[in-house]
């Protein structure tokens, strides 16, 4: 069924009781051409583009829990393409272009809102670094504007411009950045993939990967063995565990990142603003809640909840940036488990095992990448070779010394 104003009117007349389910709930078949592990944004987008762009619809997405229960439904919904390094920038800009046409493409309202992403700077060197990054972005055809303090003040007069330690000197603005309703991304891709014949199998946990003579033949699950010619891993946060089923050890640690939402407020912050003197980013949801987050808790974790010191730290950073936040009450907080890669950049690659493909290491910036990640991973799986947009996201780059280290800090699992 195509969603349109007419389908809406028709279903309004029947009291919204006759909408068909957005996707089927199939039992797994005995085998598939391609199996994807992980029904998050990346796994579902991969299945969608496999079916839509490459004509491969004999595909199953296996999700151990319910669809969208992972990071795709836990993130702070920010999208942007304001990276600096050559391996990253064209990839994220392609993602932004896909976001711009996504809702028409998959016929689902994902509330893509290009409300602008503003990064604040607080020192002269930071402004220089922003100018450099903005120039790098513009070389790749990405929009970037450097604002001075007055330019920022016009947009957000309530920021703490004269903070004694972290005065605001300006910022870098990407107007095409913004937010997207995260759940709707999972649902839109799921519906689009399902309608093209992809089986989305929920509550199906992969417990083993079977290979014969160095080639993947299928996976063991709690619903029995499922055969496949090709297997894509997109198990964000659990990538090490799943890859270990095929004997691979990854340059990744799993860490917990928390996010928060406040009580509903009247319209207050109409874009995304990030603090440059600590890690804090905030936007306002359409329901009015301020959605914000900060850094990972800092220790390896598979528990989807964090500790209170990080709650306090994030809120301190927020109040340093917007003193008025001190009077806002927090409604909820939650955590998600992410793959922290050793250079802060992702991996979309083939592996040493025939028919086994890896999509991992998204750190805490993988939501914005969802469309391009699915696009490139589908290409890599369908053609057994990398697309030029993910050509730098090789697994062996660490061994070869070709890290994509945006922060320039060297190997550590706390970059993003």
């Amino acid at each position, binding site marked *: 069924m195509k969603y349109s104003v007419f389908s809406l009117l028709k279903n309004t007349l029947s009291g919204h009781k006759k909408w068909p389910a957005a996707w089927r709930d199939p039992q797994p078949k005995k085998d598939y051409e391609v199996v994807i592990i992980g029904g998050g944004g990346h796994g579902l987008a991969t299945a969608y583009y496999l079916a839509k762009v490459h004509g491969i619809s004999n595909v199953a997405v296996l999700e151990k829990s319910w669809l969208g229960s992972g990071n795709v439904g836990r993130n702070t919904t920010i999208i942007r393409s304001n990276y600096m390094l050559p391996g990253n920038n064209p990839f994220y800009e392609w993602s932004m272009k896909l976001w711009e046409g996504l809702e028409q493409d998959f016929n689902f309202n994902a509330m893509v809102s290009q409300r602008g992403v503003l990064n604040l700077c607080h020192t002269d060197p930071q402004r220089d670094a922003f100018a450099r990054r903005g120039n790098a972005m513009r070389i790749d055809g990405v929009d970037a504007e450097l604002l001075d303090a007055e330019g920022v003040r016009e947009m957000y007069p309530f920021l703490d411009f004269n903070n004694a330690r972290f005065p605001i000197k300006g910022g870098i603005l990407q107007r095409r950045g913004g937010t997207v309703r995260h759940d709707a991304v999972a649902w839109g891709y799921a519906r689009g993939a399902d309608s093209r014949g992809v089986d989305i199998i929920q509550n199906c946990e992969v417990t083993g990967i079977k290979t014969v003579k160095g080639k993947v033949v299928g996976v063991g699950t709690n619903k029995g063995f499922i055969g496949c010619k090709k297997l894509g891993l997109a198990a964000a946060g*659990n990538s*090490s*565990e799943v890859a270990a089923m095929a004997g691979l*050890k*990854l*340059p*990744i*640690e*799993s860490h917990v990142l928390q996010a928060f939402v406040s009580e509903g407020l009247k319209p207050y912050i109409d874009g995304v603003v990030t603090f440059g003197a600590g890690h804090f980013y905030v936007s306002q949801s359409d329901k009015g809640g301020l959605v914000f987050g900060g850094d990972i808790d*800092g*220790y*390896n*974790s*598979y*528990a989807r909840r964090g*500790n209170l*010191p990080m709650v306090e730290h994030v809120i301190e950073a927020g109040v340093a940036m917007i003193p008025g936040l001190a009077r806002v009450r927090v409604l909820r907080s939650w955590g998600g488990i992410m793959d922290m890669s*050793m250079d802060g950049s992702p991996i979309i690659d083939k592996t040493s095992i025939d028919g086994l493909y890896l999509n991992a290491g998204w750190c805490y910036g993988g939501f914005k990448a969802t469309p391009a990640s699915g696009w490139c991973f589908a290409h890599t799986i369908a053609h057994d070779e990398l697309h030029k947009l993910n050509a730098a996201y090789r697994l062996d780059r*660490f*061994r070869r010394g070709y890290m994509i280290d945006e922060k320039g800090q060297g*190997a550590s*699992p706390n970059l993003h």
Partner: protein
Amino acid sequence: MLIKCPHCGTRPVEEFTFNGDASIQRPTSNDPATMDQWFDYVYLRDNPKGRFDEYAHHSSGCRAWLVVTRDTQTHEIFNVVTARDYAKKRVAS
């Protein structure tokens, strides 16, 4: 999380700075032939779900390096020793 420092007693988690997997061992050779060992040491991690030995620096306390054994799924802490005792025990075993 509360961590029982062998020197300071039970202290809150925010006094500690974590530094990842304590079980990996730094290669001792500079010979380029040992590059694979270095690669393993610098980049690859077991990243276990469950029991995990990790370095923790009591940075806002006695400043000793410790090894905390913790469950990464529940955050339950089983054991805390000084990094020195951990290393000694490893040599002995």
